[in-house]
C-alpha cells in the first residue's frame, strides 16, 4: 500500500484509442496521483469516458500502456484482481441500474456479485442506505427514482465492496444543483472514513471542478493542461475554469469563439406569447407537472431551469399541443392550446431534447421537407432554405447526413428547421445539452439575434447556470413545481445568495423542508457512514455459485416483472400450438362434392350413395348443367364433381365397360391428391364389392397397417413435432434478448466491472428461461392431451430428461445469438430465421427425414431440433424409452455444451 501511495494510481503512456474512423484518445500520457479527488474536465466527446473505461479495465486497450493500482491492465490476472478493488460508475443517469428492481434489490445484486454472504450484505446495504438517506425508498423500483436519487443508488452500488479506486464518469450530469451538492458531500464523508481511496471523476460542469484537488483538462482526445484548479486558471490567465478552458484551446479552435452579447430587450406590444395557468399533468398516480403558472412576454428569452425529470419537457410538450393537460389552461399567442389547431402550429417552432430530424435524409432534404410541410410558397422555398444554410453555417454540410455531423452542427440544423417558417415563438427543450462551450456560445448568439432582431419569443430549458444567467427571466422548476420566477438578478437578490446556483439550492432546500420528507433524499443531515468492517478482497475464483445465483435471481426478477415477456413465454406456446396443431393438418374431411348424374338409375344412385356414406365426403346439391359445374368449382364451393354417364346402370347390368369421371379442384395440390387417393380407395372397395357379388376374389390380399397412429389422426403425428418446434423457438427467442438487452441499456457495464465470470453470467441468465420453458412445456403437455387428445405412450421419464437437456441447448443457442447481435431487434429477427427452417423442414416435422437429400439431412442433424424430434415422436407416439433413445440425449447435451462454450468465447469481458 505504501509504495502505491507514492506512485500514481493510474498512469497512461502513449495511449491511442479509435472507434472505427474517429480517434477518441490521441497519444495520451498522464499520471494521476493516488489519494484525493482527481478530476477530468472537458466537454462531451473529448475522450473522458474512453479514458476512464480504459482505466477501469472495462474497455480493451488498443495501443499504449495503462497501469492501474500498480499493475498493467493488459494482464488479465491483474485485471481480475483489480475488479475487487476498483469501482466504476458509467455515464448516464442510473444506466448501470435495473429499473424494475427496487433500490434494495439492486444493491443486493451487487453485494452478491462480490460474493458477500447474507449477513454482510444486509449490514452493508443498511449502512449505505442510511448514510445516503435512501432507506425510506428501499422498496421503490430504481426506474421510478429522481435523477439525484438514481445517482446516489449508483454510488452505493459502487461502494458496496469498499473499493480503493472509485471511477465516476460524469456522475452529476442532468442532476439538480442541490442533489449535485449532496452527492459531492457524500463522497467527502466516505473519503473521511476511507482516506486511502482515490476518487477519479469526469465532469462537464466547470464550477464542480473547482472542488477537486487535481485536474486534467481534455480536448479532442488529448490532455491540454494538468494541475490544481488554481494552477490551471493561472496558467490560462483566466478568472474562471470556463474561461480557462476556452483560452487553453488551440488558436484555430478559439478563433471560432466570440463572447455572447445580448442587447437589452425592448418591450413589444400585444398579448403575452405564452400563458399558463394552473397547468397540471398526471401520468397515473405520478404528478409530472403540478399546478404550474407563468406568462411569457413577446420577444422575451425565457428560461426553464431544473434537473432531468422535473417536468420541464412535459410542460413544453403540453404547450406545443403534443400532450393534453390533465387540468389547467394554456394559451399560445392568445389562443388556447389544442392539439388539432393547425394555425397555431404554423406560428410556433419546436426543438425537442434529442435529435428528432430524419437521419436518412440529408441536411438539405430535411430542410426542404419541412419547408414543404409548412407550405412555404414554392418560389420562396429555395431562397429561404439557402438563407438558413448560410446563416447557420450549414452550407458545407448541405449534402451530408446528420448522423455523421458533430453534435453542435446537428443542433444548429434543428434550430434552422425550427425557425424555417419564421415562427413567432420558439420552444426549445434543452437545446445545448452535450454541446461544447464554443458551440454553445455560438448557438446563444443565434438566439440573441432571433429575439432581439426578429422579435421572436424564445422559451427554452437548460440545466446550465451560465445559460440561465443570459435569459431575460427564468423559472426554477423542481419535482413538477415552479419554485420561483424572475430575472436572474432578482432571484439571486431575493435569496441573498452569491450566485444563481446558490439561489437555486436555497429554493430547493426550502421546497424539501416544506414537504417534510424530501424526494431529493438525504438532505445533508444523513448520518455519517457507520464503521463497517473492511471488505476483505476475496480471492477472485473462476467459479462461484453465489455469483451465478446473483445473476439468475436478478434475471428472474426482471422477467417476472415484464408482462410482455411473461406472456410470450407462457401464452406464446399455447397460441402457437393451436395455430400449428390446427393449421398443419393432413386430415382432409367432409370434402364438399356434387353429383352430375346423367343416368339417374338405381345403380348410379347406389354409386353416389357410397361417396355420400364416406366420412371424407359431404354431398351438396346436384349439378344441373356444365356452366353451373364450372361456376361452383371456380368459386370453391365444391371440391369435386362425380359425373355419372348416361346409360351407366344399363351398361353395368350388361357388364359392358363404363367410365365414371371425377372432376377435382386441383388448386391445392395436396388436397387434390388426397381426394384422388380417397376416390381410388372408394372405387376399389366398390369394385371388389361388385366383383364379390360375381364370386371373384383378388389374387392376393393387401393389408395396410397404420402403426403408432391407428386412427390416422393428424395431431398424433404433428403435435410431437410442434412441441419440438415450440421448445426450440420460444426459449431461444427469450434468451436471445438477454445479453443484447443489457448491452443496449448499458447495464452490461456491471458484467465488465465486477468479478462475475462469463460462465456464471451466462448460466445465470439461462436458468430462469429453462425454468420458464419447463413451465411452458407442462402447459403444452396439458393442451396436447385436452385439445388434441395426444398423450405420452412411451417413457415419460425419457421425455422429461430429454426436454430438460433440449431446453438447456435451445436457451444456450439463444445466448449465443445474443452475444453476437447488436440490437434486440436483430436478435429477435435472427433467432427465428435461423431456427425455424432446420427445425420445421429438416427435422422430420413435415417431411420424413428418410426422404431428405443427404445435404438437407446433414443440415437438420447439425441442429438440436432433429435430435429432439426422435425423443418427442418416440415417447409420444412410438412408445419408446431410454433403451432406444439414450444416444439422442447424449448428442443434445453435446449441443448445449458447444453453444455455451461458443457464447463464452464470443462474449468479451472487456468492451472493445
Amino acid at each position: 500500500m505504501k509504495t502505491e501511495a507514492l506512485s500514481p494510481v493510474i498512469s497512461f503512456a502513449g495511449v491511442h484509442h479509435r472507434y472505427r474512423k474517429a480517434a477518441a484518445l490521441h497519444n495520451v500520457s498522464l499520471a494521476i496521483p493516488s489519494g484525493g479527488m482527481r478530476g477530468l474536465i472537458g466537454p462531451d466527446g473529448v475522450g473522458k469516458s474512453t479514458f476512464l473505461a480504459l482505466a477501469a479495465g472495462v474497455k480493451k486497450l488498443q495501443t499504449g500502456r495503462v497501469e492501474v493500482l500498480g499493475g498493467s491492465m493488459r494482464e488479465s490476472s491483474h485485471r481480475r484482481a483489480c475488479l475487487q478493488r476498483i469501482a466504476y460508475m458509467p455515464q448516464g443517469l442510473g444506466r448501470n441500474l435495473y429499473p424494475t428492481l427496487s433500490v434494495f434489490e439492486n444493491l443486493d445484486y451487487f453485494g452478491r456479485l462480490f460474493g458477500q454472504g447474507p449477513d454482510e450484505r444486509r449490514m452493508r446495504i443498511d449502512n449505505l442506505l442510511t448514510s445516503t438517506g435512501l432507506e425510506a425508498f428501499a422498496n421503490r423500483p430504481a426506474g421510478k427514482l429522481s435523477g439525484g436519487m438514481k445517482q446516489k443508488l449508483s454510488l452505493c452500488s459502487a461502494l458496496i465492496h469498499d473499493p480503493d479506486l472509485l471511477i465516476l464518469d460524469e456522475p452529476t450530469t442532468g442532476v439538480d444543483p442541490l442533489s449535485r451538492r449532496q452527492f459531492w458531500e457524500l463522497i467527502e464523508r466516505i473519503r473521511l472514513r476511507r482516506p486511502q481511496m482515490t476518487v477519479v471523476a469526469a465532469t462537464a460542469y466547470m464550477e464542480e471542478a473547482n472542488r477537486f484537488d487535481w485536474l486534467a483538462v481534455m480536448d479532442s482526445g488529448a490532455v491540454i493542461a494538468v494541475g490544481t484548479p488554481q494552477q490551471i486558471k493561472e496558467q490560462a490567465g483566466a478568472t474562471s475554469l470556463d474561461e480557462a478552458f476556452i483560452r487553453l484551446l488551440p488558436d484555430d479552435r478559439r478563433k471560432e469563439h466570440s463572447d455572447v452579447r445580448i442587447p437589452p430587450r425592448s418591450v413589444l406590444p400585444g398579448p403575452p406569447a405564452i400563458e399558463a395557468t394552473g397547468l397540471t399533468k398526471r401520468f397515473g398516480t405520478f404528478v409530472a407537472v403540478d399546478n404550474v403558472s407563468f406568462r411569457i412576454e413577446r420577444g422575451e428569452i425565457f428560461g426553464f431551469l431544473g434537473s432531468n425529470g422535473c417536468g420541464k419537457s412535459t410542460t413544453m410538450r403540453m404547450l406545443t399541443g403534443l400532450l393534453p393537460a390533465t387540468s389547467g389552461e394554456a394559451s399560445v399567442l392568445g389562443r388556447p392550446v389544442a392539439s388539432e389547431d393547425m394555425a397555431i402550429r404554423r406560428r410556433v417552432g419546436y426543438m425537442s431534447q434529442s435529435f428528432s430530424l430524419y437521419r436518412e435524409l440529408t441536411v438539405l432534404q430535411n430542410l426542404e421537407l419541412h419547408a414543404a410541410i409548412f407550405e412555404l410558397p414554392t418560389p420562396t422555398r429555395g431562397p429561404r432554405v439557402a438563407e438558413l444554410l448560410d446563416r447557420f453555417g450549414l452550407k458545407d454540410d448541405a449534402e451530408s447526413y446528420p448522423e455523421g455531423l458533430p453534435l453542435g452542427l446537428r443542433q444548429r440544423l434543428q434550430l434552422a428547421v425550427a425557425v424555417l417558417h419564421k415562427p413567432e415563438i420558439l420552444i426549445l427543450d434543452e437545446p445545448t445539452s452535450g454541446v461544447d462551450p464554443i458551440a454553445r456560445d455560438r448557438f446563444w448568439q443565434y438566439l440573441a439575434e432571433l429575439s432581439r432582431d426578429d422579435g421572436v419569443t424564445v422559451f427554452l430549458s437548460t440545466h446550465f447556470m451560465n445559460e440561465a444567467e443570459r435569459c431575460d427571466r427564468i423559472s426554477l422548476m423542481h419535482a413538477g413545481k415552479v419554485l420561483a420566477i424572475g430575472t436572474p438578478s432578482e432571484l439571486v437578490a431575493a435569496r441573498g445568495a452569491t450566485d444563481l446556483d446558490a439561489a437555486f439550492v436555497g429554493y430547493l432546500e426550502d421546497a424539501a423542508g416544506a414537504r417534510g420528507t424530501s424526494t431529493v433524499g438525504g438532505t445533508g443531515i444523513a448520518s455519517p457512514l457507520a464503521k463497517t468492517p473492511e471488505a476483505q478482497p476475496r480471492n477472485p475464483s473462476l467459479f462461484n455459485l453465489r455469483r451465478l445465483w446473483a445473476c439468475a435471481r436478478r434475471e428472474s426478477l426482471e422477467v417476472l416483472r415484464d408482462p410482455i415477456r411473461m406472456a410470450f413465454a407462457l401464452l406464446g406456446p399455447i397460441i402457437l400450438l393451436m395455430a400449428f396443431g390446427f393449421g398443419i393438418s393432413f386430415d382432409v374431411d367432409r370434402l364438399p362434392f356434387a353429383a352430375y348424374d346423367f343416368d339417374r338409375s338405381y345403380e348410379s344412385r347406389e354409386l353416389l350413395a357410397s361417396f355420400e356414406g364416406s366420412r371424407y365426403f359431404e354431398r351438396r346439391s346436384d349439378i344441373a348443367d356444365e356452366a353451373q359445374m364450372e361456376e361452383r368449382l371456380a368459386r370453391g364451393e365444391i371440391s369435386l364433381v362425380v359425373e355419372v354417364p348416361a346409360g351407366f346402370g344399363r351398361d353395368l347390368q350388361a357388364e359392358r365397360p363404363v367410365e365414371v369421371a371425377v372432376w377435382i379442384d386441383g388448386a391445392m395440390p395436396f388436397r387434390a391428391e388426397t381426394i384422388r387417393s380417397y376416390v381410388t380407395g372408394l372405387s376399389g372397395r366398390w369394385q371388389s364389392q361388385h366383383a364379390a357379388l360375381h364370386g371373384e376374389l383378388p389374387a392376393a390380399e393387401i393389408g395396410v397397417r397404420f402403426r403408432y397412429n391407428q386412427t390416422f389422426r393428424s395431431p398424433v403425428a404433428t403435435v410431437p413435432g410442434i412441441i419440438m418446434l415450440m421448445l426450440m423457438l420460444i426459449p431461444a427467442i427469450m434468451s436471445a434478448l438477454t445479453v443484447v438487452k443489457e448491452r443496449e441499456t448499458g447495464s452490461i457495464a456491471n458484467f465488465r466491472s465486477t468479478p462475475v465470470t462469463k460462465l456464471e453470467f451466462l448460466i445465470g441468465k439461462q436458468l430462469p428461461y429453462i425454468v420458464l420453458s419447463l413451465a411452458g412445456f407442462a402447459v403444452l403437455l396439458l393442451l396436447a392431451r385436452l385439445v388434441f387428445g395426444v398423450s405420452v405412450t412411451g417413457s415419460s421419464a425419457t421425455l422429461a430428461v430429454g426436454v430438460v437437456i433440449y431446453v438447456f441447448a435451445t436457451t444456450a443457442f439463444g445466448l449465443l445469438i445474443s452475444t453476437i447481435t447488436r440490437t434486440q431487434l436483430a436478435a429477435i429477427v435472427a433467432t427465428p430465421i435461423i431456427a425455424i427452417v432446420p427445425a420445421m423442414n429438416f427435422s422430420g416435422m413435415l417431411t420424413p427425414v428418410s426422404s431428405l437429400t443427404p445435404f438437407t439431412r446433414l443440415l437438420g442433424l447439425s441442429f438440436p431440433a432433429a435430435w429432439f424430434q426422435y425423443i418427442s415422436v418416440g415417447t409420444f407416439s412410438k412408445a419408446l424409452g431410454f433403451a432406444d433413445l439414450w444416444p439422442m440425449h447424449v448428442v443434445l447435451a453435446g449441443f448445449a455444451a458447444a453453444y455455451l462454450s461458443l457464447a463464452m468465447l464470443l462474449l468479451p469481458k472487456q468492451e472493445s
Partner: protein
Amino acid sequence: MRASVANVLRLCIKELRSLRADPVMLVLIAWAFTFSIVTVSKGMKFEVSQASVALADEDQSVLSGRIATAIQPPYFRQVRQIAVSDIDRSMDLGTSVFVLEIPPRFEADTLAGNHPKIQINVDATAMSQAGNGAVLLQNIIAREVRNYVARSSAVVPPNVGFVTRARYNPNLDAVWFTSTMQVINNITILSIILSGAAVIREREQGTIEHLLVMPVTSFELTLSKILANGSVIIVAALLSLLLVVRLFLGVPLQGSLGWFVIGAILYQFSVMAFGILLATLTASMAQFGLLVIPILMSMLLLSGSITPIESMPAWMQAAMQLVPSTQFVSFAQATLYRAARLDTIWHHLMIIAASGGAFFTLSVFRLHGWVTKSQ
C-alpha cells in the same frame, strides 16, 4: 383538404427515401420475393415424394422381385431389403416410412389361388406421406400381382373405370400452389413488419413527435406510411408473380392478375394498418417482435395458404373468416387458379376492406397518444 393530400404525398416521398436508406429492409424485401419464393416452393412438399420403403421379403420369388422393382422414384426411393427381425427397429427410428412384408410361398400361393396376404406397415407419424403413399403402394402391388397372374390365366378387366381429372392444375404440380401462396404470405409478413417497425423506429428517434408539432395530422402520417410502404410491397409482389412465379418457375397464372392486384392493394392496406395498430400496443421494438411472432404465425398457418382451411374445426374456421389473411387467400386462390367471376367472390374484398377500415381508424386514433406517451 388539398393541403392534406399534398402533405400525404410529401410524406410518402419522405417515406420512400427512408426506405431507400435502409439496406437491410430492402434486402429483406428482395430476398422475400425472389429466393424465398423459389426455395419454399421447391422445398415445401406435402405430396408423396422420395418416400422410403423397406421390404422384408421371405418369399424371394420372381413376383416379389417384380413388386420390389415396380416401386420407383419420384414417389418412392429404391426399395431397401431388410430382415423381418429389423422391421420394428427400422420403423421406430424412422428409417423407413413403409415396410412391406411378403410372406413365404407368396408367389406359389397366389398362383394356386390361395389369396395370400401381403402386409404394408405404415409409419403413421409421417402423415404427409402415410395416407396417400399407402394407396399408391396398394395400387402398385395390385397391378403387379394382376399382371403376373394374367400371364397364366385370363382375367376379366374391371368393368367400371374411375377417371379422375384435376381442374386448374392437371398434373397437380405443388409449385403452382406454394409459389403464389408464398407471395401472399410474404405480403403479410413484410407489410406487418415494415409498417410496425417504421412507426416504432420513428417514435424512438423522435421524428414522429416532431412531425406532430407541425401542421401534420395523425391521419396523414398513418396514411402516408401505408401508401408508400404498401406501394413498394405491391410492386415487388407483382414483379415476383410475373418474373419469379410465371417466368422462372413456369407457373401459368390463369386468372385475372388485375383483380388480384386490386385485392392485394386492399389487403396490404388492411395488414399494414394492423401492423401499425400492433406497434401502438407495444413500448419497444423488442416487445413488438415478441407480440408479432405468434400473431403472424397464426395468420399464416390458419389462413389456408399452407393446408386446406376445411380441415380445421368448424369454430376455428368461422373465427378465421374474420381475419383478412384468410379472406385474401380465398380470394387469391379463386382469382389466380380458378379464374372465378368477380361477382361470386366480391364478398372477400368487402371483408378485407372493412377490416382495413377498422384497423386504420383504430391506429389513427391511438397513434397520437402512443407517440407522445413518455417512454
